[in-house]
């Protein structure tokens, strides 16, 4: 096995035993990036020199007695997470040359733990999308089939993990953006509970649902990354003091009850996905898990609610990109060069179509005369969606659903239909609106394309998701079926 194919656990054990060094591990990842990223295009920036220096430092720290699960482990970070001194573009022309002046809190924490930053990954511009086709710098190709999308918006991070370009990656999940690409690429993707880890230093999208989280090769690895990035941060007042229970790994899941929300098992989901999920349910039953049908009647309103709240918060959060303090600035353009024209031209040229659509949708929904009908109404329906999910979760340990209605689609297939793209979020946006933790696990294949299943847990109960996910993973080994990157 090549070193870049290791999991965090495996790599960490080998480094602790003195069998390999962080420099060797980092070199293997950098080699792999050179080998395949020309075709996959997961990375926007690769920090070769800096990564090797960090790896050397990690080895030195270990030599003087330091230890830790993430010490010397090479990772990639989604390019909407600020990394000091490194270009951070949000995959947008408006930030094409922006160098972040500080580290996001989660990056700071990873650095303290000794992780090595290999570079930044591609995403849908400002995290707006479900395919990474909205990136201003081109889409990321799925390692399992280069003609297909890697999912989004954390498509770069998911593809990089699936192709072993790194040992783990960071993404952000606002309405499914870690889970859906994890499903499309065959990786593990966790959206932690809202408030579990700090959003300070994340380029904000929907402040009431954004959560940073890990994309990894195994469930156990996801828990290691979460432990490192979780925690209260005085710079993010929405972070919550909540203990992260130990992820104990009992061999059997007898006594676990999983809820199946009937509104998530509907016509419109591809037959291949339904078959994978049905087999997974059968596999869980063999492990001693009991299932219970539950109902979430407001599920059909999840996408409309999400697509009022999200653009509204986006229109507010993206107003800071105005050509004044940083980013693309069109100072004069033939015609008069006044303040208004700097704003409208910098934003008009700098933002891509989806960002502009969402800004306008949000501006409309929040404007005088429409606020009550749209934003306020959506937030009230959101309360109902949240309440019924919380109530369903009182009866069971977690919920199980497909992550996406289908496997990865072809690049270009959906990009002319924004509304169709919004429906990608149909199974994942609910947990985001309710702020609940949710994980996507590799669960099988549909015509050789990965299919993920989603587990949604009670607030702050990531340990339960890890326990159940790990049990399933060890019994079925889908995560070991790696992509063959075709030429």
């Amino acid at each position: 096995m090549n070193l870049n194919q290791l999991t965090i656990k495996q790599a960490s054990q080998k480094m602790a035993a003195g069998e390999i060094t962080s420099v060797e591990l980092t070199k293997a990842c950098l080699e792999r990036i050179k080998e395949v990223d020309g075709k996959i295009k997961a990375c926007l920036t690769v920090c070769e020199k800096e990564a090797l220096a960090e790896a050397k430092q990690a080895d030195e720290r270990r030599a003087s007695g330091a230890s830790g699960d993430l010490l010397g482990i090479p990772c990639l970070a989604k390019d909407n997470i600020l990394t000091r001194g490194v270009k951070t573009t949000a995959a947008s022309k408006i930030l094409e040359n922006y160098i972040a002046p500080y580290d996001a809190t989660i990056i700071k924490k990873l650095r303290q733990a000794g992780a090595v930053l290999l570079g930044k990954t591609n995403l849908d511009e400002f995290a707006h999308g479900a395919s990474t086709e909205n990136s201003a710098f081109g889409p990321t190709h799925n390692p399992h089939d280069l003609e297909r999308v890697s999912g989004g918006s954390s498509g770069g991070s998911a593809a990089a993990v699936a192709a072993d370009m790194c040992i783990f990656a960071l993404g952000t999940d606002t309405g499914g953006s870690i889970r859906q690409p994890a499903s499309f690429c065959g990786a593990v993707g966790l959206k932690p509970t809202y408030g579990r880890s700090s959003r300070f230093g994340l380029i904000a999208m929907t402040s009431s649902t954004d959560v940073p989280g890990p994309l990894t090769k195994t469930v156990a690895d996801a828990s290691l990354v979460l432990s490192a990035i979780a925690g209260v941060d005085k710079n993010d007042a929405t972070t919550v003091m909540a203990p992260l229970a130990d992820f104990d790994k009992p061999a059997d899941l007898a006594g676990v009850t999983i809820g199946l929300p009937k509104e998530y098992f509907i016509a419109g989901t591809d037959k291949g996905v339904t078959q994978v999920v049905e087999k997974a349910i059968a596999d869980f039953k063999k492990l001693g898990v009991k299932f219970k049908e539950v109902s979430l009647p407001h599920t059909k309103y999840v996408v409309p609610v999400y697509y009022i709240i999200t653009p509204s918060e986006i229109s507010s959060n993206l107003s800071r990109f105005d050509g004044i303090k940083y980013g693309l600035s069109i100072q004069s353009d033939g015609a008069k060069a006044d303040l208004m024209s700097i704003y409208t031209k910098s934003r008009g040229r700098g933002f891509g179509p989806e960002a502009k659509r969402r800004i306008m949708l949000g501006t409309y929904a929040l404007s005088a005369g429409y606020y009550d009908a749209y934003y306020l109404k959506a937030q009230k329906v959101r309360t109902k969606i949240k309440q019924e999910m919380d109530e369903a979760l009182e009866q069971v340990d977690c919920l199980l659903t497909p992550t996406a209605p289908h496997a990865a689609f072809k690049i270009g297939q959906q990009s002319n239909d924004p509304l169709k793209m919004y429906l990608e979020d149909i199974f994942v946006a609910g947990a985001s609106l309710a702020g609940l933790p949710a994980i996507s696990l590799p669960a099988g294949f549909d015509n050789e394309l990965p299919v993920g299943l989603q587990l949604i847990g009670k607030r702050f109960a990531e340990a339960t998701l890890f326990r159940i996910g790990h049990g399933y993973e060890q019994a079925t080994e889908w995560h070991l079926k790696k992509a063959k990157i075709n030429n």
Partner: protein
Amino acid sequence: MPLSKEEIKHIAKLARLDLTDAELEKYGGQLSDVLNYIDQLKEVEVKGVEPTAQVTGQENVLREDKIEDWNEKEIEEALTDAPEKEDRFIKVKRVIE
């Protein structure tokens, strides 16, 4: 209800976005489609339901009203990204005519 060209232009101005005629046309149609889809929220009964302000039940997370200065290096790095500068200030066009 499809949005008129005037309405789209108005929204674009509020959002400080300079759009070409082609963009106005394209986004107008797409926005109208999305708004149509969202209209189904009219059906939902929400009497007595509080809007979700935040999902974690937190209250009043406060801190001391103390100034915490950035360090010199951070200030330099932040100013490096500014398009127009004069000494330690970021330059802005005249705001009041």
